[in-house]
């Protein structure tokens, strides 16, 4: 009657281990944590709560340079390129401390997290020597050119193209939702280099583009907060040198996929709303059991997500490939980050827009920023599709 229904007991064995082994941080990491906290107490102790709430969207080039001086950008890069050859977990500790404190990391975030490692792996020697030390000093802002007007979740359908000439490449097309393009020194762009493939994932390549190149125009797009944060970037016969092709022509999709996997489970995937949690803890009524219970659940979720995110970092540092678990961390992290402003509304009925309390100021920012948490870096629906694939749904 019910074809294929498992009406008998069909559990044979534990199929897959979903438990992320917790990661213990050694004395080096904890010493570093102490250093970072002291540095933050010195440099940003007077940073207003409303600004802290911006998390990694807040930026201050001066702060990034100071961080670079301390050796806390490009921590994983080789010393010959200005890096510091620190461990993945040491880098993790620095990142989580910066985010928990609401430090303005936006001016170097993309370069440190994505562009630096990409260039180290695929760029020419001369580009590495020129750019990596500047990334490590916190001087360079990068943006990532992926989405286009007609290609959002369906990223592989992009049409912006690079055509090879005797001198290098000529780029035409446009990129959309490019965060920070109006400040960026460079873009890493995914472009079509070959046409007519059966698979739309083929024929894509990554490029390093100097944003001062003639033929590039940038139009900031106000987001719902009224901030100019993301942009439309139009390329009209923009000419870049031959060695701006990063990696192998046609390998762009594989390179981008690997890059995205690595950035899915970092601490920025669950800490975006932490300032609002801190405000709620101070505003809560210690005699109100409802406040206690609701905030207790938030604490449990946050503590669990930290174990998950840190645990995946530990797996990555041991050379494992926890792609499925990393995607799960991002999905769960965004759920928590977006629940926080709902909790704040539920408990405090915050009058958003008012400036009479830091709770109201932080809530006003976070509730408006929250929709982006499950859009940036790939929508929730695409992410869950990737998770489902990892579950071996045939």
């Amino acid at each position, binding site marked *: 009657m*019910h*074809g*294929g*229904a*498992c*009406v*008998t*007991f*069909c*559990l*044979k*064995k*534990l*199929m897959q*281990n*979903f*438990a*992320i*082994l*917790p990661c*213990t*941080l*050694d004395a080096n*990491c*904890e010493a570093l*944590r102490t250093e970072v906290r002291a540095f933050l107490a010195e440099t940003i102790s007077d940073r207003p709560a409303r600004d802290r709430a911006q998390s990694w969207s807040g930026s201050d080039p001066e702060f990034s340079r100071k961080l670079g001086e301390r050796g806390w950008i490009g921590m994983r890069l080789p010393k010959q390129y200005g890096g510091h050859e620190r461990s993945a977990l040491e880098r993790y500790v620095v990142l989580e401390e910066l985010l*928990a404190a609401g430090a303005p990391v936006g001016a170097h975030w993309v370069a440190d997290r994505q562009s630096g490692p990409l260039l180290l792996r695929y760029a020419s020697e001369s580009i590495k020597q020129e750019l990596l030390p500047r990334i490590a000093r916190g001087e360079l802002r990068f943006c990532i050119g992926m989405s286009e007007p007609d290609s959002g979740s369906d990223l592989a359908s992009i049409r912006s193209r690079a055509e090879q000439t005797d001198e290098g490449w000529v780029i035409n097309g446009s990129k959309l939702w490019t965060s920070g393009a109006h400040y960026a020194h460079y873009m890493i762009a995914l472009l079509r280099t070959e046409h007519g493939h059966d698979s739309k994932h083929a024929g894509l390549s990554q490029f390093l583009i100097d944003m001062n190149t003639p033929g590039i125009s940038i139009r900031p797009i106000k987001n719902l907060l009224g901030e100019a944060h993301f942009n439309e970037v139009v390329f009209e016969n923009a000419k870049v040198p031959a060695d701006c092709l990063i990696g192998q022509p046609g390998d762009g999709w594989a390179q981008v996929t690997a890059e995205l996997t690595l950035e899915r489970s970092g601490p920025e995937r669950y800490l975006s709303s*932490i300032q609002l949690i*801190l405000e709620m*803890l*101070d505003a809560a009524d*210690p005699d109100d059991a409802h*406040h*206690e219970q*609701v*905030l*207790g*659940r938030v*604490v*449990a*979720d946050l*503590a*669990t*997500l*930290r*174990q998950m995110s*840190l645990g995946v970092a530990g797996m990555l540092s041991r050379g494992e490939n926890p792609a*499925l678990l990393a995607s*799960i961390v991002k*999905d*769960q992290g965004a759920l928590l980050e977006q629940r926080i402003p709902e909790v704040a509304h539920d408990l405090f009925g915050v009058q958003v827009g008012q400036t009479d309390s830091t709770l109201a100021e932080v809530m006003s920012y976070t509730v408006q920023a929250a929709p982006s948490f499950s859009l940036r870096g790939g929508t929730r*629906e695409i*992410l*869950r*599709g990737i*998770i*489902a694939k990892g*579950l071996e*749904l*045939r």
Partner: protein
Amino acid sequence: MSDIKDMIGESVNRMFSQTVDRRLLDAAESGDWQRSLWDMVEESGYGDVLVGEGTDDLEGKWADAFPVFRALGFYRVPLPLAETIIARGLLVRVGLPPCPGPLTVIQQQTGDKLNLQIVDGCLLLNGSAVAVPWAAHASNVIVAGSVGDQKVIGVIRGDATGVSLQPGFNIAKEPRDGMSFNAAACDAFAVCGDRLPNEPALLYGALARAAMIAGAAESVLQESIQYANDRVQFGRPIGKFQAIQQSLAVLAGEVTSAQTAVLAACESAGVHPRWFDVAVAKVRSGQAAGLAANISHQVHGAIGFTYEHSLHYATRRMWSWRAEFGADSEWATQLGRQAIQRGSSGFWSDLTQGTSATR
């Protein structure tokens, strides 16, 4: 990760995958005591995973116990093994001998109806306890409570004079019995001093149940994936539909969250698990229990709502276990109270302390 833990995990999975089937589960639900399975379990030593070679060998046992608790949930094992494990764990930690099982535990809490007093060097129990797991089958009951401001652990036989039983069940038909005590004398007791944390049976029981929920949640994920791959509608397996895929991805997130919270609490335990880690694990797994049951039933459709299907053996357990040894809402209230008292300035440093090797 210890080799011992891997070995225990492998052997416990092998044993339960070969023995726990629906015939056994149905027999247990109709009230039959599963003697031969219990004898196998005791022979294999799973009841002693929190017991060391001596009182100096009690560090890190919770990490070894994790795969056993998880398997109890994953295979829906109808035995008081979790209760026996934590009962013996409590006994050896106060220097009492681990007694033969099956065992169960009672945690006296402020405001409940159980009273402990020491009379002529003997620990006497008066009053009652509700929903004591597997009490009807327990040879001995381990009672954790207080006499004045002294914490004590007592051992009393299930059939001791002055002890009476009112049979009851949770909705998974696991025995959860009322117990009454009328000047009932313990056979042995120990004053804990600082050898045990506050409300130790509650702490141990909560982590055990959290791990069992994590295991049960993983089992319903596995069943749901299998069903989504097998069941064909509109000409293809329902797992091909995005709506089903999105639901299963959420379910996988719940399973991962619950398992990780529990594993973290077990791995970070010394002689005892840390209160904060247990609270987090019980809250997170309790939340996962409801969602995992909802999603797995939705994916299974009507067939999963039948008694004939095996899904309910897990979902009825999860609905029961999330309320036992402190419901997740109660643990959350305590977690929240602590966090509010500490305020924003202590929050992050408290949170990061747990993963430091030097703490």
